[in-house]
């Protein structure tokens, strides 16, 4: 650790990993409800568990991004973070908000209250007071990192990272705008949901990937930056108007079908570029970096993101196809693999890279970490296939043959059981990963022992 304030990242990553455990456990319970629909229905209904599953995912990914920024910005800007105090205060606000959200959801507190009660728009259900807290925390964060970068060295990596983080914070402001008209409501809702994951988050992902490649492969910064700019340009070119692929059936004009189909088809390009980038860098770079697990996660992230976001996204993005598949298990398959590949794995890559440095020791527990990679990635891949088959069957029975939704769901039982099994593998993998980061060392892969490169 070159700079003392990089230590801030440790607490962000720790909080993120705790929420990661909560998120996958929630997923496991939700997955079981698909198998046995009345499970926990009195105690904690499905809609609450699903909210916890999705909200905790988003919060821990954001905590990971914030942590990654606090970790890599000092090294890139060549100076300490402007104010560690603000950074810790920001974390406390976010954690209090998260706790508030969980308690509000689980006990349905202050139902209907405009300020304290849950808001009910998917993914941005948080009570208004939590949203205000998120904005305050985001402002503190942006002030803190921007001041650091402005006073220090400016690199393409920090520029792109800040562009992504500023963008995602500004877009979140649409969470406060909730028009009465349902079509307008959905239209603006996608300004957050789509322009986060298919716009600003991609920039954050690309800059973290570029940082990891720079550190682990030893390829020239100039070459890394060229790739980064191409990735960012193609991501924004395709992703912004790609929002149109959510405007097919919500009451927006028909021309969105063509804008959405054409631009969102091109969204596969930045993901392909990220995959090509990471592999080309590892081949060209001659450095034999000791942190094999972090490299595995970085390569895995860009590969699985290409398949999950790119290929599985394209699968149902053309409006002629989406007319049939909209809102079926195909969407669930895409959503799971895309989030896991692009954002979960990239976060786990930077955790794997940073944790040994933050704790001032060798990259221990590598084998365990890599086992967790294959367990999680294998589980997620299996889940994606199972849900894709389920979605295909569902599309045919429900949309083509016109059968009843619930009747079709009954017929998908076996798929849901297999999905639960693959989810269990992911949960075990996640717990192994957390253990590998936190528990005392066991085995090391280093020169002279076993897996010599």
């Amino acid at each position, binding site marked *: 650790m070159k700079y003392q304030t990089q230590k801030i990242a440790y607490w962000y990553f720790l909080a993120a990993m705790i929420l990661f455990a909560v998120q996958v456990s929630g997923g496991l319970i939700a997955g079981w409800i698909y198998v046995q629909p009345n499970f926990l229905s009195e105690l904690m209904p499905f809609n609450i568990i699903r909210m916890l599953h999705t909200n905790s995912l988003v919060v821990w990914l954001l905590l990971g991004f914030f942590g990654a920024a606090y970790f890599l910005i000092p090294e890139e800007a060549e100076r300490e973070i402007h104010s560690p105090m603000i950074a810790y205060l920001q974390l406390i606000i976010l954690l209090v908000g998260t706790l508030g959200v969980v308690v509000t959801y689980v006990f349905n507190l202050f139902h209907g209250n405009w300020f304290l009660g849950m808001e009910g728009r998917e993914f941005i259900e948080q009570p208004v007071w939590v949203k205000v807290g998120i904005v305050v925390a985001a402002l503190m964060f942006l002030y803190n990192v921007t001041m650091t970068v402005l006073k220090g060295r400016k690199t393409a990596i920090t520029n792109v990272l800040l562009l992504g983080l500023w963008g995602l914070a500004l877009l979140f402001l649409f969470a406060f705008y909730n028009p009465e008209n349902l079509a307008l409501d959905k239209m603006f809702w996608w300004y957050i949901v789509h322009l986060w994951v298919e716009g600003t988050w991609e920039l954050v992902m690309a800059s973290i990937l570029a940082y990891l490649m720079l550190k682990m*492969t*030893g*390829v*020239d910064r*100039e*070459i890394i930056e*060229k790739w980064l*700019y*191409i990735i960012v*340009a*193609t991501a924004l*070119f*395709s992703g912004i108007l790609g929002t149109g692929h959510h405007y097919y059936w919500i009451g927006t*004009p*028909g*021309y969105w079908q*063509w*804008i959405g*189909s*054409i*631009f969102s*088809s*091109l969204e596969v*390009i930045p993901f392909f570029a990220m995959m090509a980038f990471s592999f080309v860098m590892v081949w*060209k*770079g*001659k*450095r*034999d970096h000791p942190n094999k697990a972090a490299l595995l996660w970085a390569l895995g992230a860009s590969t699985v993101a290409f398949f999950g976001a790119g290929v599985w996204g394209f699968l149902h993005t053309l409006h002629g196809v989406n007319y049939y598949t909209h809102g079926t298990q195909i969407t669930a398959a895409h959503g799971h693999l895309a989030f896991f590949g692009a954002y979960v794995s990239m976060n786990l890559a930077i955790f794997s890279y940073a944790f040994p440095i933050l704790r001032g020791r060798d990259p221990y527990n590598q084998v365990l970490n890599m086992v967790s990679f294959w367990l999680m990635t294998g589980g997620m891949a299996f889940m994606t296939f199972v849900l894709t088959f389920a979605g295909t069957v569902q599309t045919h029975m429900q949309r083509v043959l016109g059968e009843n939704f619930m009747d079709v769901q009954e017929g998908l039982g076996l798929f849901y059981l297999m999905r639960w099994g693959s989810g269990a593998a992911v949960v075990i993998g996640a717990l192994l990963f957390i253990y590998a980061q936190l528990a005392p060392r066991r085995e090391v892969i280093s*020169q002279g022992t076993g897996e*010599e*490169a």
Partner: protein
Amino acid sequence: MNQSPAPVPAMAEQDHPLDSLPGDLMIWVLIVSELLVFGAGLLAFLGVRIADPVAFAQDQDSLNRVAGAVNTIVLISSGYLAARAVHSPNKMRLWLSGSMVLGLVFLVVKWFEYTAKAELGIGIETSQFFTFYYLLTGFHAMHVVAGLVIFALIMRWPNPRNLEGAAMFWHMVDLVWVLLFPIIYLVR
């Protein structure tokens, strides 16, 4: 396997094939992206046309082919003047002004075409043909506007490298029109 040496700045010394491209790499990324979008749009247009050739032919007949042909000549001439601007640094402003005037002429002609359609009550939702017509020519016209803004910036802050990039962008706008015009206005 033997231990590899200290980090090597890979590819740093050798010339990359991309380095021999004129202009900035990023303008090529943009040009290729634009061609993909317009290409996909035109393919979709032709694909949808197969399903209903009669309606498409009817709608196409209501277009002003003369205006389209005039605009083709105008835009290609504008591209020529932009190329001259790149090659004659002393008269750069003169050539570029000429190129911009023709760009404006293109937009004025396009404006008359659009208003004539609007007076007949024809809009983007009128038919499949007109959805594509307005999407493709509308996006293209926005690029003409963008090109004029870029040229204006270059006139204010001249720089050979940026001028080259701007001219490349302008040629792309030309090229797209040369594809749009026959496919949307002429092909039967």
